[in-house]
């Protein structure tokens, strides 16, 4: 059971990392244009001006 002492903090940290990632996507407005982003990724030229 001692392994819990390591595993629980590790799992919480990983979860928190995901949460921070989510915050970042919100802050950088990545949900503004879902349809546009879905087709942009298929462009042949490199998208050199992502949303500010």
């Amino acid at each position: 059971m001692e392994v819990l002492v390591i595993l629980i903090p590790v799992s919480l940290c990983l979860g928190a990392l995901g949460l921070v990632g989510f915050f970042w996507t919100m802050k950088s407005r990545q949900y503004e244009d879902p349809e546009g982003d879905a087709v942009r990724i298929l462009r042949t030229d490199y998208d050199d001006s992502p949303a500010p």
Partner: protein
Amino acid sequence: MNIDQPAGVMACPACIATPAAMSRAAKTVDAASVEYQFSLPTVHCAACIQTIETQLSNLDYVDDVRVNLTRKRATVHARPQTPEQDIISAISALGYEAVPLDSATLSAGETDRAARDLAMRLGVAGFAMMNVMLLSVAVWSGASDATRDLFHWLSALITLPTVLFSARPFYTSAWRVIRVGRLNMDVPITLAILLASGMSLFETISHGDHAYFDAALSLTFFLLAGRYLDQKMRSVARSAATELAAMEVPTALRMNGTDMETVAIQDVVVGDVLMVQAGGKVPVDGRIISGVTDMDRSFLTGESDPVSVGINSDVNAGEINLSAPVQIQATAVGEDTLLHSLADLVSVAESAKSRYNSLADRAARIYAPAVHLLAIAAFVLWMWLTAGDVRVAMNIAVAVLIITCPCALGLAVPAVSTVASGRLFKSGILVKHATALERLAEIDAVVLDKTGTLTFGLPELVTQLSDDDLAVAAGIARQSAHPRSKAIVQAASARGVSAATVAEITEEPGMGLEGRHNGETVRLGRAVWAGCVSSTMTVLQIGTNVHSLEFRDSLRDGAADLIDAFKTRGIPVSLLSGDVKMAVDQVADELGIDNKFHEMLPQDKIEFLNQCTQSGQKVLMIGDGLNDVGALSVAHVSIAPASALEATRVAADMVLVSPDLRNVFSAIGTARSARSRILENFSVAAVYNMIAVPIAFAGFATPLAAAIAMSTSSIIVSLNALRTR
């Protein structure tokens, strides 16, 4: 690798992109750029984005372009003082339609911020729920003593801050109604979340078996999800509606001696002399001081024929100047204009509509008190059974509260409305009012306006001219912006007749056009002016030959199908129009509407609808004119086409963006389907409660059972919502 090194071999996409990005960065540095917004109704694919973005950013006055495909909009950063028209023509040269949007109207970012805030809370609740669920699985599968206590403490550590942060929208809403002594759904939700967390904390401290941390969190998560969907749906409709509003850039041309300047409409004061160009909209109420022209008043009165006006004629804001530029002196501005006083009618009716009891309200009114009563009953019963053991009684009361809490109910309406509004949005209908879908499902009578609603409000040439005459007519007519001239040009191109060359064309404002063709005088205009006798208003005179020209209003796409569909379903249709009898009869006969009324004043229309309401009918009103505003607001539910003035769109519950009227009928189908899905969802919630409440009451509801019951009912409700067609 040195950055300055000339790139010999481009190894990666970034190497190709970097020089471009750097040149762009260099461009952005000089002078602060100004933001322009454009609506691009026709963009639809990756190639469209690419074409517009690359081609526009090649222009030297454009710093940056970003196309948003979801909202069909482009944000352009350009040098200050770049005329909007330059950017528009650049976009149209690429083959896309562009409409300028007023950035000030659009910057209503508040709803966006509310949605982002909810998403943030939802994310935190989701993260906490997942972790606590994992910890709870260990407890459910038999962890005991020190291990169980450790897991409970960990759960408490995650849950308490989360519950305080994520569930705040519920607390504030509950507090608001409690302060005025009422109950809403958020009261039991708040109680359940707070009691469950508090009770679990107490159990954890006193080494108890059961903690409801996971239940408190999943309750928060599911209910926030419902709240988020609701917010998102409304913000989509609202942003589309503000976009429509932003298309009408409110400016006026003010005469300053002999100079003309463009001013914002708020800055116009009574007495200002304004120029109204041909094809322009009259900005304020006023009196004509120079010039003669025709005005299109169909928005105000429903008349399809233009009215000729001259010096000293009064004109009202919203009328469209058809033939020649005129100067007007403002007599009423801002809130004193006729347009504005009509728009005021709307706010009165708005309050009437907010009194409508939605299904969710009715469910909440039964549900909220029942939940509290059941929890209190459970507490009292178990106090009595255990002879005063507060801990056991409290535990069971909390279990009852959690089980009965309207988790599925909170999702039942928003999930269905989101799916239904999404469907309607795709078929070109914006749902503006929260309860509009429900009201649309209930209608049993339809009232229609004629001009601009069933018809486009644009004339169509009926008289069959010979090819030669038509060619001459088109040749002279193409010099004018008058709708009837346009109709002649259109008729010619439809028949494949190319316009003849007509020389020396002059326009007699408000009367007609004169020119020369093959040495003969050609006149197109009013019969009186051309000096001949005719049964119709407009004549074409070539030499000594006179042709009477007859026009009619062209019907909107799908108008006939819509009326047929209503008739087959047995829904009575009435036509109320401000137009003259002849024009109304013509349209009514063509569409087969028997119940028709002509020359109706705005007040008559309201009266008619009030009579319908009193006789128990639930009327759908479709109209576009300012003379319909009152009627739109008193109708049970109302739809306005997107071509209507802003005041009318504000009054209507829904806006029809697509020109095809058939969509109205499919919208009714969707609304009915949505309504039955909502009712089904309520029954699912009711059945679930009938099974779960006795179990909780008897004291058999463990945290595991609560978790399973809550998730299942929420998932069933969401899946059922997806069945909405």
